Each structure stands twice: as C-alpha cells, then as structure tokens.
C-alpha cells in the first residue's frame, strides 16, 4: 500500500500547483454566493415591483385604493385588449355589470399582475357582499359556511427556503464533485500520455492497481474540496442574504448526508473521468470525451426542478446520481432520512464506483495504452 500513498501525495502536490484546478475551485466558491445575491435581488424585486393595469370605463368605488395598495398602478387606455399585448401588464374593461380582463399568459409580469388582481377582486367582492348582507340584517358569516383555520406544521418561509435548497444544493453538489476534479483527472491520465511520463511510471515496480488507486483518491479529495468550497460559500452566503423572505440554513442531518453522498459520488466520478482520460491521447481529447458527462449527471439533478413532488419507490434509488439527489432532497426538505433509501443508494453508488474502478484499471493496464502512445 506504500505505492498508493506515494502516488496520492505526488498527485496532490501537482494538483495544488495547477492553476486550472485552483481557479475552478476558487471560481465555484465565489460564483455560488453571486448567484444567490442575484436570485435574492430578483425575487425581492418581483415581490415589490408595481405592475400596470390599463383600463377603460368607470372603476368601482374603493377598488382603485385596494389595487394601488397591492402594487397595481392604474392607467387609462382606449383599448384594454390591445394595450395588454405590450403597453401595460394587464388590460381591464370596467363594464356596468362585469369586468373584462385581458392578459398575455406568455408574459410573466402579466401572470403576476393577474394573480394580484384576482386576490384584490376576491377581497373586494367578499367585502361588498358582506356589507350588503349586513345592511339587510343578515349575518355575513353566511358567506363562509365552513371557516378554515390553517395550522402549518413548519414555518412556510422555512419550507420555501428548504424547497429552494433541495433543488439548488444537489445541483451544486453533483456539478462540483464532477467538475472540481475533472481537470486533475484528465491531467493525471491523458496528461501522462501527452507528457510522455506514462511509460516511465509503468516501468516502476509499483503495482498498477495501487498507482491507479492513488490517483483516484487524490482526485476524489480535490473533488470533495471543490464541492465543500462551493457549498460552504453558498451556505455562508445564505446566512447573510435573505432569500424568499427568510434566512435559509442546512440542518446538521442534511449536512452529514450531503458529505456522505459527496464521498460516494467523488469515488465514482474520479474513476470514471480517469477511465475516460485513459482512453484519450491528450488533455483536449479527454475533455471532449468527458463533455457528455455533464449532461448525463445534470439531468437527474434537474428532475427535482421539473417534478418537485416526485415520490419514487425504492427501486428508483438504484439509479446512480438520481438516488443521491432524492436522498439529499428528503434530508433537506423533511430533515429526516429514509434509511432503506439511503442503504440502497449507498449500495448502488458503491457498486457504480467499483464498476468504474474496474473499467479504469482494465483500461490503465492494457497494452494498447502504450502502443498507441
């Protein structure tokens, strides 16, 4: 096992001296807080922004005050339908007995203005109806025969924050574990061939499996450092930047689950990228081989975005990467872990890592590696 340690130390020394890898880690650590600041500002701006309603006709008494208080500005237009296409966010024609509303669903501003208008109109209609009933001596409670009392089991703001984390964090984890060590993996495999050091390395009596394992461990470590740097800076930023109306934080359980999954993913990704790099004659060719990995890995991470309430059965936890995303999502959203799901996920990721390791070893020990070079 001595050779393993020797290779591990040498690879780490080279990685630490490689500007490309260090820059990638530093950029990731800086980029995530910047992205959060942008998201925070956009969400704040969206919540406080005033939208314009272009209207015609006579506004019912008091409605203009309610609209104005909800961030909806009124502007007289000749044709509300035409104005709603571009000039204003929403078009409304106040007719004697009804209200005609025009809006373009492809515009996000129109959707937000519509939601606000529906809320205001609901309140206005309810108030008017209650007032009319009261004037006739009838209890306005008649309008609300089943009064509803809501008891949220956790803070809605915290839940919204967790939902955000449950998408964003697995996404960053997977991308950073993959990309954080990619440059080092290609340098350590395709780079060895390109620099013509591979033959000398294989001429040493050190067993090739140990050489490969030393490389994988060094790359895994740097992938973990990259992921931890990106996620750490993100969590630190979240303590300072209000997001969705509250400060978001990661529970200790979710943090432990995240680190465990990161270790498992790093082992698999390192073996896989080393195997791909071993197939390549040079660094550039290795990058070309590794490019599809981005899509393959990002797709499962994105599934949470498209199907937020995806509740799979245990078999889904056999699918590598998707299983890590699901386990981490549950840990973040519910602050709990389904142990069978975690066990299946762990077994699946270890099996994936072993398959990648054997593939890398087979490629690393084949004669064609030297003959082609």
């Amino acid at each position, binding site marked *: 096992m001595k*050779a393993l340690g*020797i290779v591990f130390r040498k690879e780490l020394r080279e990685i630490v001296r490689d500007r490309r890898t260090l820059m990638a880690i530093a950029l990731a650590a800086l980029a995530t807080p910047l992205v959060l600041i942008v998201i925070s500002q956009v969400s704040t701006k969206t919540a406080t922004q005033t939208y314009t309603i272009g209207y015609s006709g006579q506004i019912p008494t008091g409605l203009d005050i309610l609209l104005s208080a909800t961030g909806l500005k009124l502007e007289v237009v000749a044709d509300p339908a035409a104005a709603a296409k571009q000039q204003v966010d929403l078009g409304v024609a106040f007719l004697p007995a009804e209200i005609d509303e025009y809006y373009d669903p492809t515009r996000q501003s129109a959707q937000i203005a519509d939601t606000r208008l529906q809320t205001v109109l609901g309140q206005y209609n309810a108030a008017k109806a209650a007032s009319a009933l009261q004037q006739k001596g009838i209890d306005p409670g008649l309008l609300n025969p089943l009064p509803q009392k809501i008891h949220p089991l956790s803070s809605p703001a915290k839940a919204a924050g967790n939902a955000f984390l449950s998408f964003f964090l697995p996404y960053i984890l997977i991308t950073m574990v993959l990309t954080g060590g990619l440059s080092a993996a290609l340098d350590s495999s395709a780079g060895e061939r390109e620099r*013509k050091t591979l033959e*000398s390395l294989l*001429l*040493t009596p*050190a*067993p090739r499996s140990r050489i490969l394992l030393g490389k994988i461990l060094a790359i895994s470590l740097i992938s973990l450092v990259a992921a931890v740097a990106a996620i750490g800076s993100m969590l630190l930023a979240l303590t300072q930047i209000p997001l969705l109306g509250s400060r978001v934080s990661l529970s200790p359980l979710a943090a432990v689950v995240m680190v465990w999954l990161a270790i498992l993913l790093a082992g698999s990704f390192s073996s896989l990228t080393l195997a791909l790099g071993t197939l390549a004659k040079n660094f550039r060719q290795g990058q070309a081989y590794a490019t599809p990995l981005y899509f393959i890995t990002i797709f499962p991470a994105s599934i949470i975005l498209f199907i937020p309430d995806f509740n799979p059965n245990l078999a889904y936890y056999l699918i590598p990467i998707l299983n890590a995303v699901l386990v981490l999502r549950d840990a973040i959203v519910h602050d709990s872990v389904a142990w069978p799901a975690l066990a299946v996920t762990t077994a699946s990721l270890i099996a994936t890592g072993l398959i990648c390791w054997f593939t890398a070893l087979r490629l690393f020990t084949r*004669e064609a590696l030297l003959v082609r070079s």
Partner: protein
Amino acid sequence: MSPAAVKIERLEKTLGKNKVLRGISLEANSGEIFGLLGPNGAGKTTTLRIISTLLAPDAGSVEVLGFDTRAAPEEVRRRVGVVTADIGVYPRLSARENIRYFAELSGVLDGELERRVDAVLTRLDMASFANQRAESLSSGQKQKVAIARAIVHDPEVLMFDEPTSNLDVLASREIRGFMVESRGRGKCVIFSTHVLHDAERLCDRITILHEGSVVATGLTAEVRGAHRDLEDAFLELVDK
C-alpha cells in the same frame, strides 16, 4: 562465464495486424554495452518494452537476471532502468521531486532515499537546477532528469532506446559518456539505435534486427567484418 543478464529466446510479438517480432533470440551480459540495431520498425522498441515488462510476449521467453518477465514482472522492473527519446517529466515538480518520486516507487527505502537522490544529482551534475521546476528546464536538463529517474534505484540492467534522437551534440555526448561509465560499473547496458555510427563506437556486441528477425549478431568487429563500416555491413545483410 556468468549467466546472461538478459536472455531472450524465440520471442514473438504481434501488435494489431503487424507481426513485429518473429522469433528473435539474444543475450546481453553484465559489464558490456549491447547494441540492438536496426532501421525504424525493425522491432527494437517492442523488444525493449517486452524486456521491461510493459508488453507481454506472444511466444518465447525473456529472463532478466534469472527472473521471467511473465512470472515475476515486478522483480524484473526492480532491476531494470529505461531511458527513452521521450524525455517526459512532471512539469510542476522540481527535478529533485521528479527523481524522488521514481525512487520511492522503485522501492528505495526511506532511510536511503535522500542519499540516493543526492548521489544521482551529483553524478549527473544536476545540482544547479535540482530545485527548479521541470517545466522551466532545457531539453538537455530534462534528459538528465529522465536518466536520473531511470538509474536512481541502481538497476543492474540499463536500456537506452534512441536516447540521443532529440538532443544536441553536447547532450548526446554526455549520454554516450554515461553509457560507457555504466559499463565500467558492471551494468548491462542495452543501447537501441538506428544510428549505426554511434553503435559502432560504443557497443561491445551487437544484434541487428530487420523486419522483426535477427539478421546478424556477435562482436561489433565480427559483424562489421571486411566492410568499411557497420552501415555497409547492414545494407548487405538486408540485401539493399
């Protein structure tokens, strides 16, 4: 007479669709420079790669100091040092770190490590650039690093595969001097080259390969025979 340091018998090797070696046999001894000669594509590099266990033979056998390359590859690699024309080094490591890395992987013990590295740095006159990163070294300096890493574990068998093909006159002369010095230390030096003039000056015995077969073997003077030089002898041997 002591047994041969390297003994090859009826060695065959096919790479892809090419039959590169067609049953070659040869022996190289300790304390001599043995020339493995032939034009490009004759099978010289493949032979050296099989001796150093990088490639496995399809048929025949190779023994290095009594160890079979297939049965005990790690023992063979422990006793062999190879210098090639490719002077690849780890650019972000210093010359000293490059050498130390290979010494450690070759099994040089911790207590011996720095002494061995220092000794080889002194022997090859590398002290002035030992702590410089390899990326900033000249070709000649890199070649010295390549030699140093091949000999730092003090192997009994040294193989040089076209070692001077990328070097200038001065650096080439240093390499030749080093081969002669190693012979003086009792090492078995195998010198593979297509430059017959170099071989004629250095080698005690030679084997000429052509299209994967041995076309001549023996003392350098014997192979040259009555010809003006080795080149003329070679041309006659391959009927050109």
